[in-house]
């Protein structure tokens, strides 16, 4: 059950940022001292910054944390996702890390029929012929009783419209991963997390209101490659849709909870749900866009355009 942190090399992150820094400094016609003064004036994070550090950042000897990088980027009206996703080398490297991690020895694939072969993903909207059956499988895996109303027969396709379901299949059309998410408002999300409204009401609000949070309801892959791939789908969605201010998870899957905690995401709350005389824990997480982008693992996953991961990919 050990989740592998990608064997990442600092060098690429450094190169991307140092070239960004050199570029903006030239564009804005600033000396290193001028840049130091500007950063110092704009943010308390640079209270003790000196030109030596700037020089080292530019030469790629050293690099500031992503949190600082993101502040610098924003001072120049840019953001980390833009900077990193437009660097082909970095994107290449991130995608290959995801794929590599499944080839590493001891990376146990516990699945009975999936043996690391090729797979493809398919994004499904509620109109799709297979949506209902794939959603059913997803809900069975997730085991969150609060999501079950979505599989009742009386639930119309229309009411499920805000949901996005992405499934991964290997040969013989066997399901090897999925993610289920939707975009809602934070206000409705907190009502949902506190059980003041149910999933159908949440989805109903999602249709009317301006969404500012992407909430993940399930995310799973049989191998760590597919698991990461599924995560990259919604992280990329979040990164490219600038109206989304927060990322949230509401899950009963302890494997996903564990993965998030290993990524150092703080848990927002745990709520026990009683279902058929069993107690099921419902875990919630919420983080701001800047927290997502300052998290190295999440940034690396977010820059991967979904079609980049597998040549056999279709549908997205």
């Amino acid at each position, binding site marked *: 059950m050990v989740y592998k942190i990608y064997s990442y090399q600092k060098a690429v992150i450094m190169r991307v940022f140092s070239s960004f820094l050199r570029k903006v400094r030239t564009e804005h016609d600033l000396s290193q001292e001028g840049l130091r003064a500007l950063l110092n004036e704009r943010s308390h994070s640079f209270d003790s910054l000196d030109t030596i550090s700037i020089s080292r950042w530019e030469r790629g000897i050293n690099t500031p944390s*992503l*949190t600082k990088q993101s502040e610098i980027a924003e001072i120049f009206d840019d953001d980390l996702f833009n900077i990193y996703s437009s660097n082909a080398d970095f994107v290449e490297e991130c995608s290959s890390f995801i794929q590599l991690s499944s080839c590493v020895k001891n990376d146990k694939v516990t699945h009975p029929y999936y043996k690391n072969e090729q797979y493809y993903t398919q994004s499904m909207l509620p109109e799709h012929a297979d949506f209902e059956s794939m959603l059913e499988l997803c809900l069975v895996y997730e085991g969150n009783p609060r999501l079950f109303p979505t599989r009742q027969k009386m639930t119309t396709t229309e009411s499920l419209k805000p949901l996005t379901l992405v499934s991964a299949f290997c040969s013989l059309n066997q399901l090897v991963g999925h993610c289920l998410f939707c975009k809602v408002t934070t206000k409705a999300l907190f009502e949902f997390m506190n059980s003041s409204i149910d999933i159908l009401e949440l989805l109903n609000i999602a249709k009317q209101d301006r969404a500012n949070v992407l909430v993940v309801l399930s995310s799973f892959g049989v191998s760590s490659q597919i698991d990461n791939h599924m995560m990259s789908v919604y992280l990329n969605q979040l990164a490219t849709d600038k109206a989304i201010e927060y990322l949230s998870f509401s899950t009963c899957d302890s494997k996903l909870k564990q993965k998030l905690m290993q990524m150092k995401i703080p848990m927002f709350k745990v709520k026990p749900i009683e279902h058929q005389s069993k107690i099921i824990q419902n875990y919630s997480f919420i983080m701001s866009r800047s927290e997502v982008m300052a998290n*190295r693992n999440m940034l690396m996953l977010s820059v991967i355009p979904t079609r980049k991961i597998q040549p056999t990919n279709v549908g997205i």
Partner: protein
Amino acid sequence: MNILIVDDQKFIREAIKADLVETSVEHDLQMFEAEDANQGIETIVATEGNIDLLILDLKMNNSDGMEVINFLSVHACYSDIPLAVISSSDQRTLELVSSIVSSLKLNLVGVFEKPINVGFILAQATRLQNQYGNEIDVNESVNTSDYDINKLLEDEQVLLCFQPQINMKSKRIIGFEVLARMYDENGYIYPDTFLPLIDKAGLNVEFSMMIIAKAFKFWENETGVTNYRLSINVTAEDLICDSLIDYIISYKKAHTHINLILELTESQKVINQACVLNSIARLIINDIGISLDDFGKSYSTYERLDTIPFNEIKIDRSFVCDIDTNKQHLLIVESTIALAKKMSVSVVAEGIETESVLNILDELGCDIGQGYLYSPPIEGRYLKAWVNRYVHKDTAINEH
């Protein structure tokens, strides 16, 4: 399976034993009995804690079950004995005992009102034991020691976030509470993780100093927010440090227009020291407000009310966030607000996440609200934009 029954009444012990034999599917059932707390403790020691279920009566003739509970809590080797408390006390007492036992981190099967259903207790115990085993597996991954706290502080890898405090009647912004985050090359680090490390390294006061200095600097330079109240957390330990108090006071003297309030947490032990009370007096004389943070969480809060001339009470989020569904919490919040009114101090409710909680607080006459319903903590660089949006009625909460 070893079961220990501690109850002063013989017929109850006999009845439980009979029920156990009848309901248990296990054949290898070994039962121990004790008629008071001391005998119970002796049995626990004699069996070296090898007890699979401890059925404990709360009120006994010449002793009480709390003695056994306290014994379990101070001897870590016995603290995971599955404990079922039985009692004929009223519902409130049972809930109180339940929350005490949970806070002592004992392995509580449940608190059961007499007459009890032994079969149910046994089933509950078995179910929890299975869950308990799994839970430990899952938690092993949390590892905090991979941070070099000294280095992080030295590099000032600290970020300030602000959470708005809103006047519940007028919906106007009162001020903001400063919340600290740290970060490294992997991402943010949260107080749950870094505060214990800072404490362990003995750097509490240095850290508070850094946060206070950064918050001051931010507040005076950030036009558009300077007029709002600035609320900063301090611990009683900070108040022992004269140089920190001097710094805060001299800053306030130089910036009289900044409305500053300190939110005080920490144990009674430190608070009652003369020098802490002295510091609080100096702060108040210099027009710096004192707010009692986490009210209700610590057992000694009522004593604090008596000794400290504070301006405000903050009710802890763990009580506030579910007052619409938790009756006990509603009672606590209700009486705290009433108490604050009687003492003519203002009251802030933290942890407001839903509209129904907001409405209840409003009806109870709570003055100030704080929580994710208004906004999650906002990073300093986005604060001005948030204030603009809020003032122009553009945030979610203000749309209604």
